[in-house]
C-alpha cells in the first residue's frame, strides 16, 4: 500500500461511512470553525449503530484550518463506548484554488464507503452546494438531499427520512452506495470537547491538485445585503394578520409537472426564468 493511503476501508461486517467535512466560517465574526451542516452530518453518522466512520477533508493544510477541523474530532460526547467515532481525520492536501472534486472522487473510490454524508453546502469558498451532486455524477451513485435521519441500513438499502418544508418528512429508501446530504433539519451536532479534539489524529495525505480554472477567472466581491421584498398585508383584524403571517405562501403561478420528458421540463423552467427576468427573453 502506498504511504499516502491513510484511510482504510471499513471491515466487512460494519457499514462503511465517509463524512466529508469542511472548514466553516462564523456568520458574525468570520472566524473559522467546524461547519454547522457538516457537523450535523457527522452527528448523523455517529447515530448509526455498528458503523465505521471515516472523516475526510480536501483542502489546505494550515494551522487555522487544522484548529477548525479538530472541532470534528472533539465530537465524542454522548456515546461512552465511542466505537463509532472516527479515529482520525484525513486531510487530502490541496493547493489554494484547487478543484477538490477529483481528489475526493479518488479518495472515495479507494475507500469504497457505502454511505457518504456531508452538509448541503460549504460555509466558505464557492458554497454553491454543487459538490455532492458532482460527486454523485462522477461516481455514478444516487444522491438524497436534506436528510434528517437515517432510520435503518440493511442489505445494501438505507431507509432515510428526508426533511421537507414546514416540518414534513418523507421516508425514502435508497440503494447503497449513495451520497446523502444533511441540512439544518437534522439533529444538532454534539459539542466539541477540547481534550479529544487536541488528541485526535489528523493525517495528511498528499494528492495532486487540479487547479479550478473556471473559478480562477471569476471576480469575487463581498456580498451586499439585498433588499427584501416587503409583504404588504392589508388586514383589518388581528385574526386576519395572524392568518396572513401563518398561512402557507401561495405559489399561485406554479404548476406541477409529473411524468414529462426532460425536454418539456427544461422548457418549462426556461419559460419561468424568462418570465421572472432571470434570463433574457
Amino acid at each position: 500500500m502506498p504511504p499516502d493511503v491513510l484511510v482504510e476501508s471499513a471491515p466487512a461486517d460494519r457499514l462503511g461511512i465517509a463524512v466529508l467535512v469542511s472548514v466553516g466560517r462564523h456568520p458574525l465574526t468570520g472566524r473559522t470553525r467546524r461547519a454547522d451542516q457538516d457537523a450535523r452530518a457527522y452527528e448523523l453518522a455517529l447515530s448509526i449503530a455498528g458503523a465505521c466512520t471515516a472523516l475526510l477533508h480536501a483542502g489546505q493544510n494550515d494551522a487555522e484550518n487544522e484548529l477548525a477541523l479538530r472541532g470534528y474530532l472533539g465530537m465524542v460526547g454522548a456515546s461512552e463506548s465511542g466505537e463509532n467515532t472516527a479515529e482520525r481525520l484525513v486531510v487530502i492536501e490541496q493547493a489554494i484554488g484547487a478543484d477538490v472534486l477529483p481528489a475526493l472522487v479518488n479518495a472515495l473510490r479507494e475507500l469504497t464507503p457505502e454511505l457518504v454524508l456531508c452538509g448541503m453546502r460549504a460555509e466558505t469558498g464557492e458554497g454553491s452546494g454543487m459538490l455532492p451532486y458532482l460527486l454523485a455524477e462522477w461516481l455514478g451513485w444516487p444522491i438524497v438531499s436534506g436528510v434528517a435521519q437515517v432510520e435503518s441500513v440493511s442489505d445494501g438499502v438505507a431507509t432515510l427520512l428526508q426533511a421537507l418544508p414546514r416540518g414534513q418528512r418523507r421516508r425514502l429508501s435508497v440503494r447503497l452506495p449513495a451520497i446523502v446530504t444533511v441540512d439544518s433539519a437534522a439533529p444538532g451536532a454534539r459539542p466539541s470537547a477540547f481534550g479529544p479534539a487536541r488528541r485526535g489524529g489528523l493525517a495528511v495525505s498528499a494528492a495532486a491538485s487540479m487547479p479550478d480554472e473556471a473559478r480562477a477567472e471569476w471576480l469575487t466581491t463581498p456580498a451586499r445585503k439585498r433588499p427584501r421584498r416587503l409583504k404588504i398585508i392589508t388586514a383589518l383584524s388581528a385574526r386576519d394578520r395572524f392568518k396572513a403571517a401563518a398561512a402557507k405562501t401561495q405559489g399561485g403561478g406554479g404548476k406541477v409537472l409529473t411524468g414529462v420528458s426532460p425536454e418539456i421540463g427544461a422548457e418549462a423552467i426556461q419559460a419561468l426564468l424568462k418570465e421572472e427576468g432571470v434570463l433574457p427573453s
Partner: protein
Amino acid sequence: MLEIILPILIFTALVLAIIGAARRVRLWRQGRPSDVGFFSGLTAVPRRYLVDLHCVVERDKYISRTHVATAGGFAVAAPVAIAVHGLGLGSAWLTWPLLAATLCMFVGSLFVALRRRNPPARLSKGPWMRLPKSLVAFSLGVFVVTLPAAGVVPAAIGGWVLAVLLAAVVAWGLAEMFLGMTWGGPMKHAFAGVLHLAFHRRPERFGGGRSTGLKALDLADPQAPLGAGKPADFTWNQLLGFDACVQCGRCEAVCPAFAAGQPLNPKKLIQDMVVGLAGGSDAGYHGSPHPGKPVGEHHGALDEPIIVREGKALVSAETLWSCTTCRACVEECPMMIEHVDAIVDMRRHITLELGVTPRRGVEVIENLIATDNPNGFAPDSRMHWAADLNLPLMADVRDAAVLLWIGDGAFDQRNQRTLRALVRILRAADVDFAVLGNDERDSGDLARRLGDEATFQSLARRNIATLSQYGFGCILTCDPHSLHVLKNEYPELGGSYQVYHHSTYIAELLAEGRMEISPWKGDKVTYHDPCYLGRYNGEYDAPRNVLKALGMELVEMQRSGSRSRCCGGGGGAAIIDIPGKRRIPDMRMDDIRETGVSVVAVGCPQCTAMLEGVVEPRPEVRDIAELVADCLVPSAQKDQSGRKDNAGQPSPAVEILADA
C-alpha cells in the same frame, strides 16, 4: 493486672494506628503531585490550627468551647497516657496533669453528648452518634486507671473484675481515638485535618490572607489531565483535604443550592470524594443526601470515573452544575476544605474531556469562542450602549488614569443603565478615564466556571495582550466577576493590574469630596453583598460607606457580609439552571423583604438580573452607581461643557493632553 494489660492495649493500638496511617497516606499519595512546602507546612501547623482554624470554629461559640476542652484535653492526655501507662512512668509530674487533662476532656465530651441529644439536621448521624460515648469512655477510663498511679487510691482496689471492666472501657476509648483516627472512624478528621492544614493547596489563606482565584490548567502539556475525571486526578493534597471533613454540615447549612432543593449538598459531595478515595459505596453516609438523590446508589474507586453517565458512578452531573461557586461553603468550613476548586475540576473534565456540558452551557461556550461574548452578539456592537456618550477610546488616547472595563453587561439593557450612571459619576468627579471599546472581550469568568479552561485562557491571553498596549493607572469595573478574574486570575497568565470595583472607587471619590452630593431622600435601604465582591475579594465596607455617605439608613439582612446568601447567578448556575424546589433569588428576595426596605442596593450585574427576575411586588433593585448618580447635584455647566468639548473635538487625545 492493669499494669500488664494497659501497655499491651496502648502499644497494640499505636502500632495498628501507625499501620492505618501508612495505608491512608498511601491512598492520598495516589493523587497527582502538588507544589507545597513539606517542612514549612508542618511547622506552620500549630499556628494554622490554633489561630486560623479556631477563628472559623469560633463562629459557633458552643462547639468551639466544647472542642477546645475535648481536643485540648485529648492532645495532652494521649502522649502523657502513653508515658504513664505504656512506659510505666509514675512521676507525679505526669500523673496529675494526666488527671487534669482527662477531666477536661471528660467535661468537653459531656457537651458533645449534649449537642448530640437532639442534633440539628446538618450533622451526620451514624458513627458520629457513637463518638461522644467513645470520648467519655476514653477520658473516664484513663482518668480512673490513672487514680492509683497518682496515689489517690490504693493500687489494689477493686480486684480483677473491676480491672477487666476498666481495661474494656479503655480499650473502647483507645480503639475510637487511635484506630478510628487512621482507619476511617469519626476521629479521622483529627489526623487528616492536621496534615491538611500543613499541606493546604492555598497556604495564602492562613494568617488572614485571601486566595480565591481558580488555579490554571497547564494546557501546554498534552499529558496533563484536563480536570478531574477520576478521584486519582485530584492532587494528593486535595484528596487529603476531602478526608479532613468532620461532617459538621456548616457548608450544607449555608449552601444556596441545597436550600433551593437542587441536587447538591456540599458535605455529601466531599463525602462522595472520600468514597472515591477509599473505594466502595456511599451507603455508609449518614447525613442529608443531595436533595432528590437517594443515598446508597453511588459508588466509586480511585481509578473509576466520577461522573455518572450510563448507569451509576460517584456523582451526578446535575450535582456539579447546581453549584453557583458562591464560596459560602468554603468560607464556612472549619477545616478550610476547598469545595469550589473540586467542583470546577470535575466540571473541567465534563466540558473538556467528555463534551457533555448541558445544552445552554454549550451555546454560551460556542458564542464565547466565536464572538467573545456569551450571548453571541456582534463584537462590534459592544459600544452601542454608549453611542451618545462620546467615551474616550484607549486606542485614541493611549493613556488614561482609569481604564473603565465595561464587561458583558454592555449588551444588557438593564446593566446599561448602571453603566450610564457610572459614566455620569466619573464625569462629575472629573476622572480621566477611557474604555477599550470593541477591543474588549469577555473576561472569561463564565467560560472558566463552566469548566472550559481552554476558552478562558484564550480570552484571558487576548485581553492581556490588548491591555498591554495601553498605559493606565488602574482598571475600574462595575462587574465583580470581571473584577475577580482580572485581579486574581489574570496574574497567573501574566497580567497583573490594580483593579477597583466601582463601589470602592466611588467611596474614594466621595471621601476626597470630588463630587457634590445631595442627601438621599428616600426610604431605608439594605445592601446585598455580591459573592464575587465580598467573599472573593473581601470588599464589604466600601459599598456600605458609599450608601452611608449618601445619607441612607442601612438595614442589614440577617445573612450579610461574609455570610451573605448568593443570588443564584454565579458560576454559570443560572445558565445551566438545574431545577430545584425553589429559586435561589426568590429566597434571597425573602431575606430582603424581611428587612422591610423598599430599595435594595446591589453592586453586580448578575445580582441585579437575578433579583429583578423575582416577580413583583418586591423592593426595587438599584445598583450603587445608580443610587449615587441620583444623588449627584446637577452641576449643569460642568456637565454640559464637558460634553460640548467632546462633541467639538474630533480627537479626544487632544483634550487629555491639555488636561495634563
